[in-house]
């Protein structure tokens, strides 16, 4: 868990410093934060042994619902 937090902290701080130095627009910060927040929360859940249902399962469920798969 601590390793995950440390890796994400290093990645986010280094990228944010670069964005501030290059005066990137706010939308860069917003999209970057959304992607990294999603990645961090899933990583923490995986590290804690609580694997959430995955996109592959959602896709399979959708195909079963519309009758493409049995």
């Amino acid at each position, binding site marked *: 868990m601590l390793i995950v937090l440390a890796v994400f902290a290093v*990645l986010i701080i280094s990228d944010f410093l670069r964005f501030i130095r290059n005066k990137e627009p706010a939308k860069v910060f917003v999209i970057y934060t959304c992607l990294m927040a999603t990645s961090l929360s899933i990583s923490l859940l995986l590290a804690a042994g609580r*694997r959430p249902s*995955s996109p*592959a399962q959602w896709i399979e469920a959708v195909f079963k619902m519309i009758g493409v798969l049995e």
Partner: protein
Amino acid sequence: MGKVRISSIQLFLLLSGFLFGSTVILAPAKGAKNDAWLAILIGGACGVLLMGVYAAIALLNPSKTLVDILEEKLGKVAGTIVAILYVWYFIHLASLVFRDFGEFICSVTFPEMPMVVVIGLFAAVLLYAVNSGIEVVGRLSELLVPLIPVIMLIISLSLFTVHDFTAFLPILENGITPVLKTALSFITFPFGETVAFLMLFPHLNQKEKLKNVVLISAIVSTLMQVLIFFRDISVLGSGLMDRATFIPHLTSLIIPEFNIEPLVDINLLIGGGIKISVCLYAASRALCQIAGINDYRNLTGAISTFCVVLSIWVHESVLDLFSWTEKVWSYYSLPFQVFVPLLLLLLSLKKSKPSNAGTANEK
């Protein structure tokens, strides 16, 4: 970004590397057993046509990426929604290749290594390559992709003494249905996945060569797959080939006297690396275009991190990965690889016809 240019030979090698991708460790036509060569030929012929469709879309919309074409043909709102789905598709594809790579390395080469470390280190190298620009990835492919056929040749020649050239007989023992089903999955993996190149085609410096480059790379890839199938089945036999997970790796283990197993790892590093780089570039560039961000490099780090996490999250085990890919992948890919590109081609042809008629009238 507009000044970035890749040559036709670089595009040919990028396409070839992409088509080899994970197929250097997995046999995509395995489902047809002895008749896999027929499935590869049928799937390859359809794959050539499909890649021809992508090339035609690019030629009818010169200097436009997939996002530009979608927004122009489907309208701003619908085009943006479909473009966001394509971003997801490219990210998902990259994460699946990461997982294939991780599973192979962790079950064959470094069994004690945690998979997230293997995938994370590979992602860091690829992120550096993608951030250096697509022309750098193109030059890298010039240097590395020619090694793939050389390595295949070394493995095939080393096995020359252990061949059984009748192992693929009898032909059509189980009927034509498994062959056609496997041919469909062979179209979606790997040919249909080249839809990601619609984000790269505008960078080609000689547009007139696009169609030839695309067709030649598809034909070369199909022929290589057929040769690999005949090599593997004549060495392993159909029974062992049906039970094996990483078929080319198992074939390389049979070579008497010396061990050239790491050559298969090198092939995967090259093919998988190029496939993931192209997907990462396509996803980052498409997302930046949708959001109106100038430099795609701003989001490559976040997208790569998400791909690594997704690759671990998406499937619980290697068996789950293979069963999902076999059952769902073809149907899931069809809208992205066939339906939307065909719709774009029809709309591009429809819009180009009145303008042609208009110019004829002016004359």
